[in-house]
């Protein structure tokens, strides 16, 4: 293969590499700047990722969306879940659909199994895409402890998320409604 063809192909590959990294930036920035804000209640834990550093792992109490009787999805297929706000002001998953909703505040998710509960209501299990809150390697363990204490009922942990056209991006992690960095600064002397 001659040199100019190889170079041209490399330019294409290089652009794809940039597009993957840059595209993720643009997508996330759009959601953060123009997306609607929601608050999710969480229950988290803290490990390390060799490539991306320390993070607070995020768990949700319940990860299922109500499903109508006519919803036909197989595990692994794409569904659209609109976001509502419950009485306490936290996000609640709305009724799952197989087609894209008209409004902008919905999440594009992968369906798990569909199963009825004891009362006969159908639910579709989902995995929310907010699984990690990356932090400074020195602070992550402290944040982790704070959040764990929250699990024992002393503190409330939550995340705020911006949602736009199916894409959700985490904005901030909160302990007792205080942003995590502020909370850690305020509570530094206690530890």
């Amino acid at each position, binding site marked *: 293969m001659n040199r100019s063809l190889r170079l041209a192909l490399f330019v294409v*590959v290089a652009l794809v590499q*940039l597009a*993957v*990294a840059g595209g993720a*930036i643009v997508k996330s*920035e759009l959601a953060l700047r123009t997306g609607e804000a929601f608050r999710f209640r969480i229950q988290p834990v803290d490990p390390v990722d060799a*490539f991306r550093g320390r993070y607070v792992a995020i768990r949700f109490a319940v990860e299922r969306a109500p499903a109508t009787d006519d919803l036909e999805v197989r595990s692994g297929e794409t569904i659209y879940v609109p976001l509502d706000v419950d009485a306490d002001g936290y996000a609640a998953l709305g009724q799952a659909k197989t087609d894209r909703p008209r409004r902008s505040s919905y999440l594009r998710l992968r369906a798990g199994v569909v199963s009825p509960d004891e009362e006969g209501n159908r639910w579709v299990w989902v995995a929310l895409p*907010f699984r990690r809150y*990356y932090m400074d390697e020195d602070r992550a363990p402290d944040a982790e402890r704070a959040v764990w204490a929250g699990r024992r009922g002393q503190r409330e942990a939550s995340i705020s998320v911006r949602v736009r056209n199916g894409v959700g991006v*985490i904005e901030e992690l909160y302990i007792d409604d205080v942003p995590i960095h502020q909370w850690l600064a305020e509570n530094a002397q206690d530890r």
Partner: protein
Amino acid sequence: MAIMGRLSIRWLLGELPKLEAEGVIDSGVAERLRAYYADKTLGAGRRLVVAIFAVFGALLIGGGVILLLAHNWEAFGRGTRAAIALVPLVASQVLVGWVLIKKSGSTAWREGTATLLALTVAAAIALVDQTYHTGGDLESFLWRWSLLLAPLPWLLNSTAVAMLFLAALTWWAGAAKVEGSQILMMWPLAAAVIPHLIHVMRSDRRGLRAANLQWAIALFLCVAAGLGLENRVPGLWIVVYVGLFALMITVGAANHRGEEGLWRRPLEFVGITGSVILWLVLSFDEPWRNIGWKHIHTTERFHEVSSWVDVVLAVGLPLAAIVAMALLLDRGRHCLYLMWGLAVPLVAVVWPLTATTDSRWIGAIAFTVLLFVVGIATIAEGVRRQHLGVVNLGMFVVAMLVVVRFFDSGFGFILKGFAFILVGIGFLVANVVLSRSLRAAEKEAK
């Protein structure tokens, strides 16, 4: 000529006196050949060292960038961090572009900059994930990284990146398997190294790059064959691995000329090591419990296409091994390798037999006998060729078999005791016969 064909040159120069003596070439030609290759090999060693240093330098720098970014510099804003993510990537892309234009003949430049690019790609997607708390778990990160690496080995003619790519892909497959995801895409994606493999084998099949690439591929195949199996039909892995190792031994044996060291024979090394371990495992009855189509899993947890890939591998690999043995190996010169290939016809008989009869002992006994026969044959061949390494390999096989059986609780002590004594007597008799025939051969030679 590629820079690393030194072994071939050494071999050729070693042949020259013989060729000269037998009148194939005259002394003038021999002299000119010596002068030509003396010129060529002069800088080869130095260039090789430079290339190795370039790759390790790039690995360390790229790794350092990843670690620095992983610290998570929260003090910088989102915008700054996004820019930082792209800067090392763009810088190494420009560097690689420059090398493609100006330095494509230099292995050190090519391999070094390509390695740096592979790592800065990882750094860029990692930092973006980190900045925006997106990107999911490790599995998703490794998948995106593998996809972006796939075209690079061929495009940049870089073996180091091919090895990184296979490592990342294997890591992804392992992580995905743990999560219970489908890893069918591993096979087509892994095929991305084939064009590079062909290129390297064509330009310098006895060079260090070819050897390194073969190591990476051999190890990848060992792990991938296991991870890739859906195991819907229990026990298919036995046939798959017997076929895979026999194929590696055959292709490796057909490829080498006898003058290379162990490092340059990765296929043979992995194939033989893998065979010994596998056969020892198969000489127990446990792996043969409940195998075959009678015990097929019918729950929908199993993936349809993936299950068929199992069958294709289980039929294809042993067949490929048989065909390769028939086409590539010479019955006289490669008789030892053909002995090691015996496992394929053996498993082709034993596996279906076990599956129909559900008797676990057929397989265990067959592979115990196979280990013993191949071990003895290897010792005998080593003695015949006066090759200590081959003798030791045979001894090791027999010794391992003895150790494993000694502690095997599947047989009674009396049976084991008698068997050990009988085999011991056999060894002594063989020893006497062998040393007598050797002495006779020596006398004849005198």
